[in-house]
């Protein structure tokens, strides 16, 4: 079904009119007025979902989606690529269906945001005016907080915390080239960081590969936290069961309170406050904060309005607490949600729902309830999860985790099948696959 932009505009107006005729008075207020313009920056789990659902729920809104990359590469499941269980192409998707779902899909890099004039400028020289601006930019990695982690070092040392061929793909190749008996040194950033169980899952996935291909090798986990920061009991059980943890044959050497402070790509060393670790493959994830675009929009501010690493938002709309008409999604936000793909997907929907209500002259849901479910693979055929329901508390203006949430009783093959199904569903839900 091919139709050009003009047809689409006519069609959307037609659809709104039909909706009114069919008794859907709710859509009436925007008919005849200028179409509300929403610009979404970033087509990850948050931004893509927000754009897609906004068009589903109110086709009258004109949605422009700006994304720096021409393909979607999923961070969830990227650790299975390190294990050799999946290839890069299994976690890489086209934006074709998403392009059809929105009014304008622009592959470009945002270089300026003027919240007074309500416009967004790109490296390609374009500017986009908005009524509402949604920022789904994920995270910015702060390489300058690790000594020696400069552009040259970044050619050798990969973080693979933003998935891609030049990160995840290269790290996999480095692991394949590592000799048996080699050392893989990896880090865990200080909480809060993107994907709390991700580093410990990464250790499991690399260990799965080494156990088969290079059993004399070792993984050293340098954790910036004082203890395993997520799903501790389940990860320890998996490390013991599958990778000899706690014995002298352990594939995993876990070191808490060991934040990497420096890297040396020539000597292949990582320095922490306590140790200097020599390794064959180094995987350091530097400290992080909300995406650069959040800084451009002036929303990288805490509850008190002071500059901070993350963006304080109103949970009923995901609008910044400090800049009107600017909304922030997913990992960039200052919330008590875990920074997971599931949460990013859901914050996209909550924001879309709120904007749809507001542009139609209605009030957003004042008591939203939302869930997170986060799976982690522990071996080639087992996985486990954490699940939580959050409910808005008007008095505290916060999201309260409801009683009864928690983790799996134990890892299982059934949950591995569910994890694979989750990935298929969340990718499809986000990208319209």
């Amino acid at each position, binding site marked *: 079904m091919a*139709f050009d932009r003009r047809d689409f505009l006519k*069609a959307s107006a*037609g*659809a709104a009119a039909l909706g009114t005729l*069919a008794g859907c008075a709710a859509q009436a207020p925007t008919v005849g007025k200028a179409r509300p313009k929403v610009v979404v920056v970033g087509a990850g789990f948050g931004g893509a979902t927000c754009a897609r659902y906004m068009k589903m729920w109110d086709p009258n809104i004109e949605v422009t989606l700006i994304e720096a990359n021409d393909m979607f590469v999923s961070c969830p499941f990227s650790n299975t690529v390190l294990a050799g269980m999946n290839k890069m192409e299994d976690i890489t998707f086209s934006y074709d269906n998403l392009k059809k779902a929105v009014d304008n899909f622009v592959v470009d890099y945002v270089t300026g945001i003027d919240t007074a004039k309500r416009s967004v400028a790109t490296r390609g020289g374009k500017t986009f005016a908005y009524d509402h601006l949604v920022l789904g930019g994920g995270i910015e990695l702060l390489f300058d907080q690790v000594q020696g982690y400069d552009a040259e070092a970044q050619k050798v040392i990969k973080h693979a915390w933003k998935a891609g061929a030049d990160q995840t793909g290269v790290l996999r190749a480095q692991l394949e080239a590592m000799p048996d008996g080699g050392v893989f040194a990896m880090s865990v950033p200080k909480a809060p960081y993107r994907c709390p169980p991700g580093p410990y899952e990464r250790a499991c996935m690399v260990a799965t590969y080494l156990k088969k291909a290079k059993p004399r090798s070792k993984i050293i986990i340098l954790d910036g936290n004082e203890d395993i920061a997520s799903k501790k009991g389940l990860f320890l059980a998996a490390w013991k069961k599958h990778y000899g943890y706690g014995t002298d044959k352990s594939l995993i050497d876990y070191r808490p309170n060991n934040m990497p402070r420096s890297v040396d790509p020539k000597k292949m060393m990582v320095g922490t406050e306590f140790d200097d670790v020599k390794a064959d493959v180094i995987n350091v994830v530097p400290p992080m904060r909300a995406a650069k675009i959040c800084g451009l929009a002036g929303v990288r501010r805490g509850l008190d309005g002071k500059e901070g690493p993350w963006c304080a938002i109103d949970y009923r709309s995901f609008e910044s607490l400090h800049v009107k008409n600017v909304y922030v999604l997913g990992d960039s936000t200052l919330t008590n949600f875990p920074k997971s793909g599931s949460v990013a997907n859901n914050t996209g929907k*909550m924001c879309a729902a709120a904007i749809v209500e507001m542009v139609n002259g209605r009030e957003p849901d004042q008591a939203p309830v939302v869930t997170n*479910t986060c799976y982690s693979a522990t071996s080639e055929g087992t996985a486990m999860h954490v699940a939580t329901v959050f409910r808005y508390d008007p008095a505290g203006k916060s999201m309260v985790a409801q009683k009864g949430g928690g983790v799996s009783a134990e890892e299982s093959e*059934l949950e591995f099948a569910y994890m694979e*199904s989750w990935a298929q*569903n969340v990718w499809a839900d986000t990208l319209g696959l």
Partner: protein
Amino acid sequence: MKKSLVVSLLLAGTLGAVATAHAVDSRTRFMAANCGYCHGTDGKSRGAIPSIAGLDKAYFVQQMKDFRSGARSGAASTVMHQHATGYTDEEFEKLGEWFSKIK
């Protein structure tokens, strides 16, 4: 004009299907959409996670209550007993109604 009318009907039929079926309860619409990251958009799942689109309302509500009480447990509830405890009976009813209408 003919073409755009066809497109309009298609759009009204796909994008607007739920919206025109009943006056939109946008709170329930989000609560139902929330389930999509595991159970698929509109509750239509790919892979091992069950679809919930088109389930009989009474069956849906009873399952949610059984997850919450523990009557449905073990391998029959890896995750849902943890989610069901976070919702009210009224929300179960509304979600059951919503998913029962999706074909």
